[in-house]
């Protein structure tokens, strides 16, 4: 697997880890201008660390849903192009604003990802849709936002089994979520994010050709 431009493996305290170039955000280790992208704290980081074929090349336009305090989206903005970060809880957005401060093309949006019309007047069509909302109805959120993806774009999704149903078997939850996703996407790959994140599934998908907005 090739890493996107702007993501490199660096040595941190004798351990090799992914890194991007930018201002530190969450107390992560640094190596010169490079800062460690901790796969235990980032689902997308785990997808890359596990060697999933994300198709990321660097420089893409990105819509990121569930940005929280900006841990992952700050790394994305380090190697991608214009990056739109949607988060609906105000508390983490305070930290997201700090992460965005030294990043000129990271655009914070305090919006609800279930209501894409509320930011479609701001967000342009994107090459990559990243989603990590970890709430019930994760597949529906992705489906509702499918209209932002360019025809050759990619969805990089993290599914948290317990967000759908704490008691159900994760495998059954993943099955369900993937089936719903197939209404709008063609699944290209899916892989467990263990050992970095338990009961999480990483998904790479493209828009369905017969899909409409």
């Amino acid at each position: 697997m090739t890493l996107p431009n702007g993501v490199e493996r660096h040595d941190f305290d004798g351990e090799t880890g992914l890194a991007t170039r930018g201002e530190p955000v969450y107390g992560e280790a640094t190596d010169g201008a490079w800062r460690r992208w901790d796969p235990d704290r980032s689902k997308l980081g785990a997808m890359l660390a596990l060697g999933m074929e994300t198709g990321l090349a660097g420089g893409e336009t990105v819509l990121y849903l569930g940005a929280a305090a900006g841990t992952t989206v700050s790394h994305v903005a380090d190697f991608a192009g214009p990056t739109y970060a949607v988060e609906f809880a105000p508390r983490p957005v305070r930290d997201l604003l700090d992460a965005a401060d030294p990043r000129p093309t990271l655009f914070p949006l305090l919006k609800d990802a279930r209501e894409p019309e509320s930011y479609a007047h701001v967000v342009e069509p994107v090459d990559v849709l990243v989603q990590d909302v970890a709430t019930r109805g994760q597949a529906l959120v992705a489906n509702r936002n499918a209209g932002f993806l360019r025809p050759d774009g990619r969805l990089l999704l993290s599914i948290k089994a317990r967000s759908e149903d704490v008691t159900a078997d994760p495998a059954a939850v993943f099955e369900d979520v993937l089936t719903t996703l197939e209404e709008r996407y063609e699944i290209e790959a899916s892989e467990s994010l263990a050992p970095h994140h338990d009961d999480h599934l990483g998904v790479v998908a493209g828009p369905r050709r017969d899909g409409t907005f």
Partner: protein
Amino acid sequence: MTDGWFAGLDPDDDEAAVATIREGSADEPAEWPRLAVDAGFADDTDDYYDRLRAATTAAAEQAVQEREGADDRQLVHAVRSMADCERTANELAERVAEWGESRSADAGSGVEYARELAASEPSDPAGERVQSLAQRVVDLDEEADRLRAYIDRTAPEVAPNLAALAGPVLAARLVSLAGGLESLAKKPSGTVQVLGAEDALFAHLRGSAPSPKHGIIFTHEAVRGTHPDHRGSAARALAGKLTIAARIDHYSGDLRPDLQAELDERIEAIQSRTGGDGE
């Protein structure tokens, strides 16, 4: 509306830009950077992104500041109003169904039937009245949905940890039953466990019933998804974590994502006692 946020905007009017970022909408995305340059709003795409960043950052700052003022009183009123709307919608829907039945053999029931009726063409004066009544049911049902959306949005602001563990609506119900976040934070977890089961609790205190194992927290997956024999333990474990979450929310406001993992672990241990799949 399918215009970009910059449509009709004076490039130097920062306040207006913030307002359209926050309140505007569009049916679908479009190549906004190019369109903004074409429209003369920005000199080139770099200039556009600079303006976009200034506007989105200012809009997010403003919204965060405003919402920090969100208080538990508003949440309490919202969740009580939602319950009232739902209950009233259901009661009125029954009335509508009863009336509908007297006029048509294939009358349905519930809010769904009211929705059908509301969309129908009345054929006589009585029909007009039923149809209008049905419309009230639909309005109330939609109001309940909007209140739920408001709760989904604001409960995580008022009580982030509690909302994360309990879900926004249950979190709001607990705050409402306790009479505020502060008094919820001050309640022992045994009380939180039976909040909403006051009737059963009083019956127990009078000696006429067993003590209730759970109140409103029964609606949580951790309790409902546990075998009845072990629901008492599950309710106790859940109430314990919810109480901690409410205290952190009230006293510090920090985010403690590990609470969820701790709860999941406890519930898993309790559910595995049945040896079954938790049903």
